[in-house]
């Protein structure tokens, strides 16, 4: 993974210091809420439903075991609300169910209690906390800086933390490692003086492999590393993707851009956006709206600006070969440790015969560029804990595994799990047994219960409905791994509101929380795609009809899946069957699962 230089290290310390100064002025009343807001946001600090939320940047998802331990320390020490605050929050949450129109359902959905003292993996490969007091914020930033971490630009109307393929640098289908370019762009975008107050947030994703595992087309800018006819490396550049209330995938505005021009080109894109992006309406402020309205003109203007940057300005950010080499050296594959073996041969035999182990090998273990290695995903999708949540103990024990099995490196995945990229093939049995002991070896990666979910109405101030109770309900229903395996790979994505942090638009089955007269309802979409090989051309799912109550959602999922099982052809996946049979047929089945209007009897 990337090794910080002395400059990088000093930079994050100074940033923490700057934030402390701002925080002190804010807490002493010298800096108003309004003026402090963008400053705290650009350091990752939100103010949420009950408490501040911190989003820690994990560039392209890479974490060291040392960083995992620091994240655990933050969870243990700082993710601790005052007991009165926590009780009051739980009381307020309880009212949601108490006031629910559907509380008399015979099999009520029980909301798990609020939790504290944990970290949460996000779809953008970052880490969040929900209960840190603002008065502790500067100390937390210092602690992060001590392990080369920060919250820079994880929020705010600026260029956000850059995401990439969770298998970057280890995938067998890789054209080029996207991480050095991610780092070059991270450095370029960090505290960019011209682009700190854009019309709206700006997200960049980079993919360097044949398969897109980074939902690249769904970003404001999506970059695909490719080689041209002459074998030169460059980028296909997509602009204007985004979820939210107007889900659109990006369009190609440059088929091939030499890699050395990437910053110059992005400077052109962002400058044109800064000038023309709408500032009068927050819902129309993303670059996707500009691109959708003025695609040809936009592309023309970007190309013209790019020419002026490279010709008139002399291309000040043309990346020299030496810089790419310097940054690439920071990503050199780590020294591999010794394989960890299960010495007891009887135990090993029993394990080999264990279907759960075989399933884990099939679902959670991915091929590696180095044929003697594997990339292994620890599943943070399990009963009793929200998707992507990790306790301090789980983080620390994971750090142990990362050290012993993966040369000290891990990745936060887009689907909210933790991946170990450098595991010896011979170590798999031992790793499985240890991961299982931690409760992180469910063989469900890519299956229905490996769902993506945002924190939703339990924590988030924007949410219209809760995600976690629904996720818990679905996890409870779909525990049988045989059934899950039979259903095959399915992307189930849940967002608590139209901001789409749970990526519902790109789910094969997408669930969106909506608010109707102060009650929680859920809209269901089918057929979305993030752009992976499994899911096909990236596209938003289609809404099946009016929204459902929380009880109906599970019935809808069951009905849709039963329809799939009934009509699938040999080994056909859910998404393929949906495409072949057609949306309308599934839509009809989904709407049949609607309950009689129980609402009126409440």
């Amino acid at each position: 993974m990337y090794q910080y230089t002395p400059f990088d290290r000093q930079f994050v310390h100074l940033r923490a210091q700057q934030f402390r100064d701002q925080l002190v002025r804010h807490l002493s009343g010298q800096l108003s809420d309004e003026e402090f807001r963008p400053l705290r946001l650009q350091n990752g600090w939100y103010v949420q439903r009950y408490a501040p939320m911190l989003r820690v940047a994990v560039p392209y998802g890479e974490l060291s075991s040392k960083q995992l331990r620091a994240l655990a320390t933050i969870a243990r020490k700082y993710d601790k609300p005052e007991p009165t605050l926590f009780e009051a929050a739980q009381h307020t949450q309880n009212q949601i169910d108490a006031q629910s129109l559907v509380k008399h359902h015979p099999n009520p959905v029980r909301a798990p209690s609020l939790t504290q003292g944990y970290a949460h993996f996000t779809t953008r490969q970052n880490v969040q906390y929900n209960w840190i007091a603002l008065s502790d914020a500067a100390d937390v930033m210092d602690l992060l800086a001590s392990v080369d971490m920060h919250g820079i630009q994880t929020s705010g109307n600026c260029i956000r933390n850059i995401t990439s393929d969770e298998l970057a640098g280890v995938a067998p289908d890789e054209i080029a490692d996207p991480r050095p370019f991610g780092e070059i762009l991270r450095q370029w975008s960090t505290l960019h003086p011209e682009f700190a107050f854009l019309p709206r947030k700006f997200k960049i994703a980079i993919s360097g492999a044949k398969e897109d595992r980074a939902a690249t087309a769904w970003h404001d800018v999506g970059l695909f590393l490719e080689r041209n006819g002459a074998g030169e490396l460059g980028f296909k550049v997509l602009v204007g993707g985004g979820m939210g209330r107007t889900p659109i995938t990006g369009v190609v505005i440059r088929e091939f851009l030499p890699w050395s021009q990437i910053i110059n080109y992005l400077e052109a894109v962002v400058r044109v956006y800064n000038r023309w992006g709408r500032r009068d309406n927050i819902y129309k402020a993303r670059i996707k709206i500009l691109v959708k309205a003025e695609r040809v003109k936009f592309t023309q203007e970007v190309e013209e600006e790019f020419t002026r940057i490279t010709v008139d300005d002399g291309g000040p950010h043309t990346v020299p070969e030496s810089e790419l080499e310097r940054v690439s050296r920071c990503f050199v594959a780590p020294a591999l440790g010794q394989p960890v073996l299960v010495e007891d041969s009887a135990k090993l035999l029993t394990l080999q015969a264990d279907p759960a182990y075989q399933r884990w090998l099939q679902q959670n273990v991915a091929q590696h560029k180095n044929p003697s290695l594997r990339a292994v995903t620890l599943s943070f999708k399990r009963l009793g804990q929200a998707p992507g949540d990790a306790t301090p103990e789980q983080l620390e024990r994971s750090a142990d595994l990362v050290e012993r099995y993966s040369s000290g490196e891990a990745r936060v995945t887009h689907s909210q799990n933790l991946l170990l990229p450098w595991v010896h093939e011979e170590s798999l049995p031992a790793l499985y047994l240890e991961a299982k002991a931690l409760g992180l070896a469910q063989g469900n990666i890519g299956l229905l219960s490996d769902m993506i979910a945002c924190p939703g109405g339990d924590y988030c101030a924007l949410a219209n409905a809760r995600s976690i109770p629904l996720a818990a309900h679905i996890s409870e229903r779909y525990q049988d791994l045989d059934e899950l395996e039979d259903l095959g790979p399915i992307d189930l994505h849940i967002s608590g509101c139209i901001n789409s942090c749970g990526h519902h638009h790109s789910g094969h089955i997408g669930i969106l929380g909506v608010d109707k007269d102060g009650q929680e309802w859920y809209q269901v979409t089918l057929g979305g795609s993030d752009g992976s090989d499994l899911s096909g051309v990236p596209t938003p799912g289609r809404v099946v009809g009016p929204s459902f109550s929380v009880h109906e959602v599970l019935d809808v999922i069951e009905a849709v899946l039963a329809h799939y099982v009934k009509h699938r052809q040999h080994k056909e996946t859910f998404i393929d069957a949906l495409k072949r049979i057609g949306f309308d047929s599934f839509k009809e089945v989904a709407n049949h699962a609607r309950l009689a209007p129980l609402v009126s009897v409440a």
Partner: protein
Amino acid sequence: MTQALGSLPDSTSTPSMNLLQHTKALQPQASDWPGVSLATSHDEHAQQRVLILDNTVDPTILKDHLNGVDRIDLHFPKFTDGRAYSQAVMLRRRCGFTGDIRATGDVLVDQIVQMKRTGFTSAVLRDDQNAQHAQKPLTQFVGFYQGDALESPLFARH
């Protein structure tokens, strides 16, 4: 009122940023360009020819008309509206403007660093701002990654 000219983009020294708490109101007159007005500033030292730009104006249209212009005022209607940063960069990098670029409007101490780095040389702080608070941020960072109106990118400085 002090003279507001800071160092120029090609200077190797770190220019100072002239922070002003109050300034005399100008009496602008319309120009041939929409969104651009002209004014003359009279301070204790001299008269200055000033251009005042709305933040919607593409400043590169003025490239050949900046002779004799002492100062260009760029406006922040809200501190969260970042268009004037791009305008300042264009004036320095592409128009070669070497006079004073002044930030006006909703100008807060916590954005002074961005202003300085994009090429502003003076700023009229909003009335309630404490200029003392701007001093530390101006020198807090020893360097930045990307190039700006003052410096080349870090990778080019290695």
